[in-house]
């Protein structure tokens, strides 16, 4: 009887574990898994210039909207999302305050469009990798590496 009881217990435990792992794969608990960042890079500039722009592709592969609250990096300060728009026939940088990515939506940050405007705390050099942290509205964080390119 005890032997049977142990067998059922082990089998139940294994089954629960299997279901849990399957659920983890199919429905990730943390929302950061839904935000996929690709092609993240920073345009390098000479050390005499204190600002840099960063670009990337951001995709929401999940079922719920992902809201980005902030970007941070030890190498840069005052990081803000800007969009270059035409205003009175001039190129004008406008801050974007709400960065919510709908399910299955992709937002592309690219030269001449949306970009992260950043003040460099120190000079950058081509080929360098820079870590950046994205804070989401659910309190979670996601880390990414950006490559500095000429």
């Amino acid at each position, binding site marked *: 009887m005890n032997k049977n009881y142990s067998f059922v217990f082990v089998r139940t435990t294994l089954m629960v574990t299997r279901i849990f792992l399957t659920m983890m794969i199919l429905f990730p608990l943390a929302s950061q898994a839904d935000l996929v960042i690709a092609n993240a890079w920073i*345009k390098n*500039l*000479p*050390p*005499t*210039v*204190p*600002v*840099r*722009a960063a670009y990337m592709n951001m995709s929401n592969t999940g079922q719920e909207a992902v809201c980005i609250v902030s970007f941070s990096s030890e190498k840069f300060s*005052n990081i803000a999302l*800007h969009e*270059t728009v*035409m*205003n*009175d*026939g*001039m*190129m*004008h*940088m406008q801050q974007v305050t709400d960065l919510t990515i709908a399910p299955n939506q992709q937002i592309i940050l690219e*030269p*001449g469009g949306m*970009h992260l*405007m*950043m*003040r460099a705390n120190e000079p950058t050099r081509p080929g360098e990798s820079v870590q950046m942290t994205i804070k989401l509205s659910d309190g979670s964080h996601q880390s990414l590496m950006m490559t500095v390119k*000429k």
Partner: protein
Amino acid sequence: MRIVLAQIFSLLILVYSVIGHSVPVAANSSLVETEVITLLGSETRTLPKFELIDHHQKTFGKDRLRGKWNLMFFGFTNCPDVCPTTLSEMNSIVNQIPARVRDEVKVYFVSVDPERDKPELLAAYMSYFNPDFTAATADLDKLKILTSALGVSHKTRKKSEGDLAYTVDHSGYVVLIDPNVQYAGLFFSDRDSVDAVARDLSNLVTQNSDE
């Protein structure tokens, strides 16, 4: 009679030499079909005299542009996106132009932020993008002579009196100035149009040298 003939002959030589010097090399851009560069055709107009200071701290005026096809872009070095992107594209355009005509094309970056963009900063900026490019600036009154002639606008966006991290709104097109120092065309730079702009410039230079 011989004296009169000699005088007429001398006059003809004088007229010819004056015309020969005052009418520069033909630069009839309107005869060339372009893919990206918008040519001004009958609206092509001669630039007024202007005086800027280049990144070598030398005077930079109309004469520097004469005899070349010149690309001129207006911006500021604290610009993180449009200006460096455009300058990188200018670099790609110049490198795409066949070597035999490359010397006929010059690139100029004019800073509309003279308060921060001193010649030494412009020098570092140019040497980063392409040492063959020239940067220049001047105080706002002197800049206005050139920008007005080219329809270029710019506006400083200071948040407060002492704001040193301000941005500057500015026109985003590249101006084409022909070898006669005339405003001949313009285009918006784009990474996808680099090859086509290089072809346009090659055709303009070739057309000019064939005439």
